């Protein structure tokens, strides 16, 4: 009488084994997915669009989408050089305080009627700056002459933005600020105007159907000024939160291009050798352990010892399977100011022990906080073990991300593993938000690092207009910061994506705000 039950159990277990035998992304009976009939590209994104108005956009997901719908005056090319987008040409004054743009004359917005002119550009910038808009990126224009009067309500326009004629616009800033043009490459600086509260742009695509929670669709903008280079009729964004589901949908051919989380890259590559195109791109970001310098509980030696104690190369080779590159300072290798000759911290447990010799034993015990996720669990254990080898005993404490972020911003925690991604590819973005006193806490300076001399140097950097000088100074500041060790500099991520063989002309953009799918094709 017992036999049937046992058979059922056996069948059930076999089914489970059968379906997971390839680590959940099995395709043993699968044929290669066919190219879709129409020129439609399907993508998966992990969360819904938080903004359809570039003025309100502050996250990467929305930025990637909106960069296909809206254009900026200037953008970045593949080598991260600033190039004109809606501007025909631009020039920067010798003292780096005035920026003049000549607009393209053949640009129509997606409504098919409105033609680009300097008034639209000025209104667009003022809409972002206007406190009533509550744009999270209002500060893009805070260096422009007349910004303070405008936001205080004392002036109707920003006096520093002028329009000598319909096709020229000029922006004056209060003092030299070399990276100002980078501000204008950000998605929030897109040129758009509102019709019935809906933003209208001039990019290669338009939002054809709004999100229903499952997907939204972009369609080719027939009025786009460079339409001959748009080969895709429709971009469908599927909102799929779970990466395992994303991968399965990709293998089924329901998704054409897929961004891979670093933890899944190797499993994916092992399961699918040579079946798909794999794309790689070093990201402009940094992962680090920050010490809360405001609390004054970590001595110089302890911080430096931690930098020597963690075996970054081994963690990257074994656990992260080379999806990261070790960090030597805050600047990632893809940054133009990256300095190969920097004096950094080598893995040296003996030196770490030596540095810790005079430390009180109680100061070597503290909590290390991190964001709870599948990616961080094993990693934090490895870090803990490396630290224990030199006598530093950390208690690992995980927190949900929103909670961790806010506790760090309030200065309640002492030591935490976090990361930072750049909005624009300049040394400024890896120094001022992260180490300047004015940005402590929520502004980005999570280490509450405050050093008058460094602040002065960073102010000087902002005001430097000579780019050779600028690079030298940025590298000097980086070296000083590395010497002071407010962080343990850990690693920079490499982004991975997979695309089907029928997709042509896809590359992961170096920075998300430049992805516009120009030149992307479906091979027949």
């Amino acid at each position, binding site marked *: 009488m017992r036999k049937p039950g046992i058979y059922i159990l056996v069948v059930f277990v076999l*089914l489970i084994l059968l379906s997971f035998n390839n680590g959940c*992304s099995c395709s*043993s009976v699968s044929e290669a997915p066919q190219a879709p009939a129409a020129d439609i590209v399907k993508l998966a994104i992990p969360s819904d669009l*938080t903004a359809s108005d570039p003025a309100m956009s*502050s*996250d990467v997901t929305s930025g990637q989408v909106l960069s296909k719908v809206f254009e900026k005056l200037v953008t970045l090319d593949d080598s991260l050089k600033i190039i004109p987008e809606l501007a025909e040409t631009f020039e920067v004054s010798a003292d780096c305080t005035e920026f003049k743009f000549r607009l393209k004359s053949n640009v129509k917005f997606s409504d098919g009627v409105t033609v680009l002119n300097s008034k639209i550009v000025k209104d667009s910038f003022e809409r972002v700056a206007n406190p009533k808009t509550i744009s999270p990126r209002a500060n893009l224009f805070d260096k422009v002459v007349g910004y303070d009067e405008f936001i205080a309500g004392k002036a109707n326009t920003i006096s520093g933005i002028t329009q000598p004629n319909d096709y020229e616009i000029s922006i004056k800033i209060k003092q030299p600020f070399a990276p100002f043009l980078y501000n204008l490459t950000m998605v929030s600086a897109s040129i758009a105007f509102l019709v019935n509260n809906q933003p209208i742009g001039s990019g290669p695509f338009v939002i054809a159907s709004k999100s229903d929670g499952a997907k939204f669709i972009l369609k080719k903008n027939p009025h786009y000024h460079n339409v001959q280079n748009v080969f895709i009729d429709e971009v469908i964004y599927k909102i799929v*939160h779970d990466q395992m589901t994303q991968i399965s949908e990709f293998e089924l051919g329901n998704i054409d291009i897929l961004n891979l989380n670093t933890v899944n890259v190797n499993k994916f590559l092992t399961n699918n050798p040579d079946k798909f195109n794999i794309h790689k791109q070093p990201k402009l970001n940094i992962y680090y352990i920050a010490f809360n310098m405001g609390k004054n509980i970590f001595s110089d030696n302890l911080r430096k010892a931690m930098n020597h104690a963690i075996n970054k190369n081994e963690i990257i080779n074994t656990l992260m399977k080379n999806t990261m590159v070790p960090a030597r300072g805050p600047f990632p290798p893809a940054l133009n100011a990256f300095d190969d000759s920097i004096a950094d911290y080598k893995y040296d447990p003996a030196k770490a022990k030596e540095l810790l010799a005079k430390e009180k034993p109680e100061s070597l015990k503290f909590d290390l906080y991190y964001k709870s996720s599948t990616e961080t669990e094993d990693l934090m254990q490895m870090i803990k073990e490396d630290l224990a080898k030199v006598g530093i005993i950390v208690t690992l404490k995980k927190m949900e*991300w*929103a909670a961790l972020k806010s506790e760090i911003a309030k200065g309640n925690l002492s030591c935490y593993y976090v990361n930072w991604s750049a*909005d624009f590819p300049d040394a400024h973005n890896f120094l001022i938000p992260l180490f300047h006193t004015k940005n402590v806490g929520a502004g980005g300076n999570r280490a509450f690092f405050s050093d008058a001399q460094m602040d002065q140097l960073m102010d000087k950097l902002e005001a430097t207009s000579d780019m050779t000088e600028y690079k030298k100074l940025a590298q000097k500041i980086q070296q000083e910061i590395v010497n002071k060790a407010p962080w343990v500099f850990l690693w920079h991520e490499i982004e991975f994506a997979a695309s089907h063989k029928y997709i042509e002309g896809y590359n992961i953009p170096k920075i998300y705000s430049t992805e516009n799918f120009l030149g992307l094709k479906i091979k027949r």
Partner: protein
Amino acid sequence: MLNYIFERIIYSLITLLIVTFITSALIFLIPGDPVLAIVGENASPEVIKNIREKLLLDQPFIVQYISYLKRLAQFDFGKSYVTNLEIWDVIKQRFPNTLLLALSSMLFASVFGIATGFFSALYKDSYIDKISRYFILIGISTPVFVLGVLLYTLFSVKFRIIKSITGFESYVNLILPTIALGTQSAAYIARITRSTVLDIKKQEFVKLAKSKGLSRMYVNFWHIFVNSLAPIITVIGLDFGSYLNGSVITETIFGWPGIGLYIFKDGIGNRDFPVIQTMVLFCAVIFILINFVIDLLYFALDPRLREKLKSS
């Protein structure tokens, strides 16, 4: 009966008021700052301050709570901090999806669960009973996320029976999420049906009916099945909550655009306070309504209760 309904409505309103207070207090107490979700990584302190003031987040709890109640009194459910969309519009768009999934899962669980439990009890200790009991054991102990992944791996990736895992272009897309969400409930329903039917089978009136020479099918249906329905319906109704809870995970796995995903990812993940407040309140209203309907059904099905109410 009218008095009873009136009383229930008053109690429900008080419950909802308590729900709003607890939700708001919890939101105020939990760590996490919605402004940091709005501004993203790279924002200036002035912008953060400006947004905090605009959203009243710099005000004490009681001010925030009263302003929330005032809006609620005007049926203004607020806008999401992050997306700036009217929350009510999102509910209108997404709740039908969750309801569709919940109802289809409920239907699946009820039909499958009752049938399994009923035949399992009728043919106690037979093969059918053995198989059913294993189903109950496996069904109850398999979490939704395991079953969900297992189902799409088998039926989509492996055997290509269902071509697309996510989205809801056709009703075929409803099949896997329905089974994932409904299986655990089906197992519970099967268990309760089995024990209820076994219990009723032993009752005197069943023996009497059989001894009167009524056909086996007639007794099985009219005397055993119908009489076992009341507790089963309670379980099905009370379990409706589990469909809403379970929908969070099912919707995440299958990319189903319902409210579970909205509460979890958009609301809690971003600390989008108005979304959390409104969605919790909305779910509370649904729960109260369902309990109310179950009570009414109970009256309809159980004559003893009707008598009790009349006499009181």
